[in-house]
């Protein structure tokens, strides 16, 4: 270590370290700081907000252009509180910083705190950024990324994950595309279509793989979350106003290139019939942008790094097990937000705040608030469960694959290669399939193809996807890419 500027953050043992500055992390940091403990908030982004409150560079953007962001007032208030704690020195925000390794407290005596090993990612600053921070307790709020399914032609430029489209719109207000189709499943397709339309993109259709009938059986739960209902109504109105057709039980089965052969030109639409059977394609739409959203996959790198237990959730995502204090199975480690089950920003915020209060050991002082938060979490979780039940990934999705469809784009592994590994080489679990084909071993480390390859491995044995199928695809080390020299300790 250089030793010139060994930063102050490096020498402090914080009471609480919060990783992730989306709704869950902000809620957690604000609550813990208010309870009077020392907090360090670490996030890869250069501004607070995470995915949900991603916004253009504040130093160069007219603030009035941000006012229309969802729940923006909530964000501003949280940020205000956190910045105030940063000014008094009670909290420290490390922006543009990746946690690449989590070192547990020494077993039996010795150092009793967690050590987070950091990788600064932003532009070089005058101060030497800390290489590590120590904290007694951790609150992990790593969020989630788009879940994707392969489809023939999805490697063409112009095919994007729905969340990726939204991130571009939120973060830069730009997009290259004039005629779009939004497809997949779940309510998240609606805001993406709405935002595209707002930016002047002609959205030809929103294709929802499921029917809406399944929502009927969840009416009691829906009735308890009126905010969600009015949100859906708002989207429905704005889609109607923009004359965007909303097609249920409809999927994209193929993406074709345009005349140049280098970019999206058209998509094929097909109905999902009884028993989830994908029918023959019926319609073509000429588009230059395809946004695909199949729900979200929680980021589990940090959760695996601390060794917290995981389980499979209703939406077939691997998530962390937490108790009703957001406490994981590892003592001293709290987890909030999508990593405990995909459920949206308000659920994440509530879980984060609860984790912040309990991690700051202030639960007994804020009994009423804790109770209220638990109720809120229960209500929103029930809604999320209803949503997952109403919007499953179509069971027969592999039907639309062809032998050549790349399941893993990084390593260019085709569907036929996976099939061969399963039938000829005895790959009857996801780990073996991955190691035999290199599927999910490239740049994205399975973020893009992990769910698909796990579900193909399970399907190859004719059984439903389990946590054991997903676990080998969730990695542990490093939690973020780290240059060799940094790892070496230079």
């Amino acid at each position: 270590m250089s030793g010139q500027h060994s930063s102050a953050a490096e020498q402090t043992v914080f009471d609480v370290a919060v990783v992730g500055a989306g709704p869950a992390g902000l809620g957690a940091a604000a609550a813990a700081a208010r309870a009077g403990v020392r907090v360090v908030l670490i996030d890869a982004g250069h501004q607070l907000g995470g995915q949900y409150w991603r916004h253009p560079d504040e130093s160069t953007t007219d603030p009035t252009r941000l006012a229309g962001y969802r729940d923006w007032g909530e964000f501003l208030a949280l940020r205000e509180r956190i910045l105030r704690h940063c000014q008094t020195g009670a909290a420290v925000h490390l922006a543009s910083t990746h946690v690449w390794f989590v070192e547990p407290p020494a077993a039996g005596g010795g150092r009793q705190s967690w050590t987070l090993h950091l990788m600064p990612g932003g532009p070089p600053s005058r101060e030497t950024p800390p290489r590590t921070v120590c904290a007694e307790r951790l609150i992990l709020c790593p969020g989630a990324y788009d879940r994707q399914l392969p489809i023939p032609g999805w490697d063409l430029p112009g095919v994007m994950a729905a969340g990726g489209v939204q991130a571009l719109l939120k973060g830069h207000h730009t997009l290259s595309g004039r005629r779009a189709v939004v497809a997949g499943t779940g309510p998240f397709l609606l805001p993406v279509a709405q935002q595209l339309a707002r930016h002047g993109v002609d959205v030809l259709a929103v294709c929802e793989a499921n029917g809406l009938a399944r929502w009927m059986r969840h009416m009691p739960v829906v009735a308890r979350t009126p905010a969600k209902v009015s949100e859906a109504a708002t989207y429905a109105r704005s889609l109607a106003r923009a004359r965007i057709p909303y097609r249920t039980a409809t999927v994209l089965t193929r993406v074709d290139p345009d005349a140049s052969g280098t970019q999206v030109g058209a998509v094929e639409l097909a109905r999902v019939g009884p028993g989830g059977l994908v029918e023959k394609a019926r319609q073509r739409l000429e588009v230059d942008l395809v946004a695909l959203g199949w729900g979200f996959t929680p980021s589990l790198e940090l959760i695996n790094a601390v060794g917290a237990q995981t389980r499979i959730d209703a939406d077939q995502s691997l998530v962390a097990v937490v108790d009703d204090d957001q406490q994981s199975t590892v003592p001293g480690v709290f987890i909030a937000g999508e990593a405990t089950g995909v459920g949206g920003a308000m659920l994440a915020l509530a879980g984060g705040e609860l984790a912040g209060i309990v991690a700051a050991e202030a639960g007994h002082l804020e009994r009423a608030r804790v109770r209220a938060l638990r109720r809120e979490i229960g209500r929103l979780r029930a809604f999320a469960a209803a949503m997952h039940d109403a919007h499953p990934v179509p069971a027969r999705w592999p039907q639309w694959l062809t032998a050549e469809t790349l399941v893993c784009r990084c390593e260019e592994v085709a569907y036929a290669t996976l099939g061969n590994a399963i039938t000829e080489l005895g790959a009857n679990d996801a780990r073996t399939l991955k190691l035999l084909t290199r599927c999910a071993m490239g740049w994205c480390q399975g973020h893009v193809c992990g769910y698909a390859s796990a579900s193909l491995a399970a399907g190859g044995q004719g059984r439903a996807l389990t946590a054991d199928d997903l676990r080998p695809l969730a990695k542990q080390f490093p939690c973020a890419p780290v240059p060799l020299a940094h790892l070496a300790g230079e």
Partner: protein
Amino acid sequence: MQAPGSNGRSAAAPRGADVVVIGAGAVGAACAYFLASKGFAVHVLERGGVAAGSSSAGEGNVLVSDKVAGYELDLALYSRATWSEELAEYADRWEFEAKGGLVVAASAAAGRALLELAAGQRQRGVDARDVDPVAIGDFEPHIRAGLAAAVHYPQDAQVQPMLLTANLLKLARERGALVSTGANVVGFDLRPEAGGRRVVGVRTSQGTVSCGHVVNAGGPWAGAIAAMAGVELPIMPRRGFVLVTEPLPPTINHKVYAGEYVASTQSENLGLEVSAVVEGTQSGTVLIGSSREHVGFEAAMSLPALRAIANAAVALFPRLAGARVLRSYAGFRPYSPDHLPVIGSDARVAGLWHAGGHEGAGIGLSVGTGKLISQALAGEVTDIDLEPFSPARFAAAASASA
């Protein structure tokens, strides 16, 4: 895509076999292939999936360069010939590539030791070519400057261990072998006979398989399997980590390693040995091994080991300093106390054979081992004398020291 011969078949009622092979790692798969080729009815029992153990957790180096003149080197040369002669037609299935190895030394003393080692290896039949230090850059343009000596080993090669294991099992199945995954071996059926006991069956989580012979190819768990038959086999796990970088433009041409880093890192980290073995892969990622530690089956990532590996790699290839590590994996080498594998029948239990303890070379040595086991089981004279690899040597050593 129902898989034949995997779960589907493993659920079938257990039946008899001439030979049961325990463990579907590289060694077990090679034994199964060569035994089936000789006409034995073979049944492979594996508690996990294909190559669930060490064979999926290492690199695929097939080296002659890292073995000092002796029995292990003889086995390595025998195995190397098996790869490129008898198994040549399958080379593409497991991505066999004779890319050659380059061993380098930084200090004058280490350089002298390296050239001496190479001279001994040459006498035993290794193609080892001393490289003029000024010409090292012609082999590896990005290697650090100022190295004292280097030796080029054209025979050093590599395979993809998973594809190797899965394809050997496929070839074995085509020759009539049965492969059961998810079959955990929990004990043996032993029958008393004149002068001791004989194994007549293997008990598994899926039922009992009766058999005439058992080959224990349990990798680092071989000791536990031997214990089920009531015999001691001193094979222990020795942990190793490997780092994998992001895909890079071609940076490294050979398998490159420096012997002396072993010594230099040993002093700093008690019980931890690290030597940088660096190689580029076809997909552009660079594999960087590896560490050696006796920590039982503890798989948690250990920062000191990972740091030491990174240090050694950057020292050898300064250009790798900025390369980002994408992932890392841990594995357990089957370690045998005298660094020689255990290959042959166990005199204490009739019908019990061992094929294991290859430590950091079990992929490279797998096919030679399998071939020798098949010859011994068929009662033939083996191509290499198995005496030095006999399990009996541990008992002899113990009674000598007692």
